[in-house]
């Protein structure tokens, strides 16, 4: 067994640790790993080119940018924030838990492309979450705003990851099924999807509790800020 290509992994770890440009680190790691596996330079170039072209689907979010950019220029984020600010009984935790539930349920039915960081989090969820937090504490500083946006992105990821595995036609279930089939074990895909349900419920509960705790922390901070005055 040739263990030398593992040095490509070491390049990634070292590159991220040294805070080198990630795009450069990844390209160097690919070259190192390919060279150490004994590939010639022409084969290496062809491998990089072919695999990069095969992953074009990952940049299609680009097509959402004209719409999002135009709407932001016309005040979409301001309007999303105002809208939440006007709804009195709708709190930060309601917003994030509601979004989490919708995202998880849609993912369960395989509708994963309908939300995402470019489509929904930046233009809608993040400004709404900031507005909901402002209802608790009007004097949010930038550090707190950044934490709120990060939490909104984390909620989207959690909903997506731990919803999609219940969908039978989703890649994960098919990959698991395919792996066993290749090894001579034929399982029922529905059984595999079913075993993803306990973790999906746990993910919903954990992230919801964190949203409630986040909201409580905002309340405490505001109270401390007031008592100092």
């Amino acid at each position: 067994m040739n263990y030398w290509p593992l040095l490509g992994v070491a390049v990634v770890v070292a590159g991220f640790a040294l805070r080198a440009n990630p795009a450069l680190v990844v390209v160097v790691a690919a070259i190192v790993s390919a060279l150490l596996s004994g590939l010639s330079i022409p084969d290496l170039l062809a491998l990089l080119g072919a695999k990069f072209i095969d992953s074009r689907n990952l940049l299609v979010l680009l097509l959402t940018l004209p719409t999002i950019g135009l709407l932001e220029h016309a005040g979409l984020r301001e309007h999303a924030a105002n809208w939440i600010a006007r709804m009195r009984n709708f709190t930060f935790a309601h917003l994030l838990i509601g979004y989490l539930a919708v995202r998880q349920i849609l993912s369960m039915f395989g509708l994963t492309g309908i939300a995402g960081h470019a489509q929904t989090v930046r233009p809608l969820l993040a400004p709404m979450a900031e507005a909901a937090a402002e209802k608790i504490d009007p004097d949010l500083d930038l550090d707190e705003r950044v934490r709120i946006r990060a939490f909104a992105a984390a909620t989207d990821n959690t909903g997506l990851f731990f919803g999609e595995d219940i969908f039978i036609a989703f890649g994960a279930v098919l990959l698991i099924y395919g792996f066993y089939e290749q090894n001579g074990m034929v399982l029922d895909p529905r059984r595999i999807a079913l075993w993803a349900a306990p973790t999906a419920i746990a993910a919903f509960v954990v992230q919801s509790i964190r949203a409630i705790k986040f909201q409580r922390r905002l309340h405490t901070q505001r109270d401390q800020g007031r008592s100092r005055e």
Partner: protein
Amino acid sequence: MTFLRVEYVYWLCGLVLVACALRELRAKRFAHATFWGILAAIFLLGDAVKSAATHGSVLPQQLAGIGVIALGLIAGFLRRAPVADSVPDRERRAASAARLGRRLFVPALIIPFGTLVFTLLQPFVHVGGIGELGRADATLLALGLACVLATFAALALTRARAHDAIAETGRLLDALSWAALLPMLLAMLGAVFAATGVGEAIAHLTAAAIPVQSRLACVLAFAAGMVAFTVIMGNAFAAFPVMMAGVGLPLLIGQHHAHAAALGALGMLTGYCGTLLTPMAANFNIVPAALLELRDPNGVIRAQVPTALWLLAINLLLIWFFAF
């Protein structure tokens, strides 16, 4: 006759990138213009390169490879153009928000709901060979179509010109910078690792390092391997076959008689906990940090650490109690 092809979506991306590259060229930002220009070429010519390769000519693929290396080298030189967010700008946006009100949501919602409707319609439409498209390709095509519709709706609503749409796209793309490219580069790296046998080497080392008679040691090694390998590859799909072949199948199922369906599903979900923790899953963790203008590129990962650790612990318990 199939005239609907997913390539059209890539060509559209290529055209948007050409427009952004020309905009940077006019601003005399040559590193940026070259960067987006190379990427535009890869999107526009990608299919020609692939069909050349199937006809035995690998030269275009090799040129694309050189392009990828050039992208990596230029990435470090990209600097964000100064953003002028002046008080009049903010007042103008607030006034526009008040004037357009709820109508602003319409184009934004056309993207998700348009994608949804087009995806759901796919099985019922029989023109242009839509039925022959795979599910993933059909979703991409639906997303592309919804984005085009949404752009027209946004142009009509805001009375902006096509030129403004390009300027706004360029602004957002500039904020994303090289982070926009990272998902593609990492997918490429994953494929290179798979082609060069990195996965098998890791599985070999793990299996050699653990006491195989202990069920607990095997479960912990399997879970730790899924998380670690997902963190390295940025993708649980890449980790799963490797860890299953190295530890799951021979040790947990073969020797300790684990329940195959439960182990498969829970093993994959354990890998997902790793996805929440790694900068290598760039499209989920690094791209949103850039999109949301967090100053810390690992800000989203930091927000996910508690969720990931809790779910990892819960998954370990589920494997321990239900997979045996």
